[in-house]
């Protein structure tokens, strides 16, 4: 297996897969399996189930290869299948949340504690910061990317409401575009943005609390 082989060209990747080239399959697995596991875990209870969902997805991908028309990227196609499999499985485990329900329930709560701002009726500087957020520019990159920090971020993401978790995972961890996220999850651009905003704001506030407590 040549893991470093770079299948930039989706057409040739597809041809190789259809032709039964194991290195093409290995490359895909290496690229996406962990991400698939992580996404599946947002819908099902434990690692074992997530692994099953991911494996079922690979089976479905292989079986669907000849029908895949390349209207989306292979990555988007795989993750759409995964999300559907995971949702079905999660529903059976009674853990899933339907996006349409959640869209209705989208709270309009502020993402920054209102106590951080001066009251709306204060004369000159209504609704301005009491104490400005501090600049993170002087904090070294290593501090942000330390194992402790990254674990804390992942723990925070894990505690987010399910719909926010899925969106921030796909966008900011897996690097999907907003369009791809909307396609995979079947949600509107606007709702995707609201969910993403709430999720990012939560992670930011945890980082802020942590950094403040360090000093």
């Amino acid at each position, binding site marked *: 297996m040549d893991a470093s082989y770079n299948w930039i060209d989706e057409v040739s990747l597809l041809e190789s897969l259809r032709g*039964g080239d*194991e290195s093409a*399959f*290995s490359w895909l*697995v*290496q690229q996406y*399996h*962990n991400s698939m*596991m*992580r996404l599946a875990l947002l819908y099902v209870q434990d690692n074992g189930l997530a*692994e099953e969902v991911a*494996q079922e997805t*690979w*089976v479905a991908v*292989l*079986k669907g290869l000849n029908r895949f028309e390349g209207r989306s990227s292979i990555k988007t196609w795989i993750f759409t299948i995964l999300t559907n499999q995971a949702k079905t499985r999660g529903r059976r485990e009674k853990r899933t949340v339907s996006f349409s329900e959640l869209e209705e329930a989208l709270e309009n709560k*502020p*993402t*920054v504690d*209102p106590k951080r*701002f001066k009251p*709306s009726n204060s004369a000159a500087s*209504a*609704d*301005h*910061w009491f*104490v*400005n*957020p*501090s*600049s*993170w*520019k002087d904090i070294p990159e290593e501090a*942000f*990317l330390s194992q402790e*920090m*990254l674990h804390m*971020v*992942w723990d925070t*993401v894990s505690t987010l409401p399910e719909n926010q978790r899925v969106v*921030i995972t796909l966008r*900011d*961890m897996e*690097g999907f575009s*907003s369009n791809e996220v909307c396609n995979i999850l079947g949600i509107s*651009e606007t709702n995707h*943005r609201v969910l*993403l*905003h709430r999720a*990012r*704001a939560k*992670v*930011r506030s945890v*980082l*802020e609390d942590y950094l403040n407590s360090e000093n």
Partner: protein
Amino acid sequence: MVMNCKELVELVTDYLEGKLLAVDAARFEQHLSICVGCTNYLEQMRQTIHVMGYVREDALTSQQWQDLLQIFRDWKSS
């Protein structure tokens, strides 16, 4: 109307995604030009997104590899 901090923090993602109306984007940037707190807030959100991109899981176990390659071989021989 002039944008205040409380309003700006809720528009950061729309701003970063390029989804604000031109008039609101102008108000947003105009506020930033006079507000250190919001400038820092925007920077913190950008840094948060940056950090999110580094959250990764471990490599696949050999058991996982074996299972997946078996799936492929089963498919190929079917």
